[in-house]
């Protein structure tokens, strides 16, 4: 039986089917969850796509291994996956700091202060600036902001992912947004914002 990546079968149900040997369930889960974890890890790791792919693959491997013991309804599959990915990213960040390495910064040099004439180009530059600003945030603020405003998790879900209380999530998210706004304010003109 084929399951669509965006179909009606829940992640929980797919994982149970996977544990029973359903190959199509494996395909559906791969298509549903891998992109989300990849996007999240890419932003946490400062745009390092290769590292983010390793994290995504490792997270999914752990999901396959835990499948036989999965208890439906206890927690969402995606919440579990975000939590694993967060811890894997934290490990990599610590390892890099110990080695004195820095993350790749994909933000373009905004040497040209003239506003982009092409709307799509302007959109790309704004998104790149956002990614660069996210990379400049403290780790915990970045995690909270990305999970809340880009990945779309609720505060209680973020609390489970980050293993903190809901109030702490709200505080981190608010501080993270203020820091983002401050970082991007210096580039408003270059990014074509008026006023």
């Amino acid at each position, binding site marked *: 039986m084929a399951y669509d990546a965006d179909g009606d079968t829940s992640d929980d149900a797919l994982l149970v089917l*996977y*544990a029973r*040997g359903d*190959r199509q369930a*494996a*395909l559906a*889960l*791969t*298509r549903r969850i*891998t*992109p*989300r974890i*990849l*996007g999240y890890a*890419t932003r946490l790791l400062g745009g390092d*796509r290769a590292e983010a*792919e390793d994290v*995504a*693959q490792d997270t*999914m*491997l752990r999901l*396959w*291994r835990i*499948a*036989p013991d999965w208890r439906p309804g206890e927690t969402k599959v995606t919440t579990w996956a975000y939590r694993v990915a967060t811890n894997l990213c934290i490990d990599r960040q610590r390892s890099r700091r110990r080695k004195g390495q820095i993350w790749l910064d994909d933000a373009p040099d905004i040497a040209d202060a003239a506003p982009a004439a092409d709307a799509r180009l302007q*959109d790309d530059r*704004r*998104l790149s600036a*956002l*990614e660069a600003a996210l990379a400049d945030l403290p780790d915990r603020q970045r995690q909270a*902001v990305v999970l809340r*405003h*880009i*990945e*779309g998790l609720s505060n209680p879900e973020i609390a489970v992912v980050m293993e903190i209380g809901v109030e702490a999530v709200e505080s981190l998210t608010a501080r993270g*947004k203020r820091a*983002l*706004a401050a970082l*991007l*304010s210096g580039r*408003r003109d270059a990014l074509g*914002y008026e*006023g």
Partner: protein
Amino acid sequence: MQDEELDRLLARAAASPPTPAPALLERVLANAWAEQDRLRSVDRPTDRSATRRQTGRVPVLDWLAGAFGGPPMLAGVFSAAFAGAAIGYLEPGMLDMLTGGDAELVDLFPEVDFLTTEG
């Protein structure tokens, strides 16, 4: 930057997730299927539990073990039963050899005749 501008930018980022490379999806799926194959080989029926799965019938020993609280308990009951039977049927001298001790025959009812005498 205004709050509304930042919110629109974050929403734009949410709507533009990075697309996984096909090679990554292939690796993830290959791991998934390999893990399923591994689980299937571990779960392959080779023991009495397979009988239960395949026929619905519970083997006698499994039923007894369940009744006594598990295989270790059942083994203990069998051992105790064997020891009791051995003590009951063996001569004291043989019991000495088995236990390494001194077994004495004690007549608890020296005048047991009164129980067996008729009339």
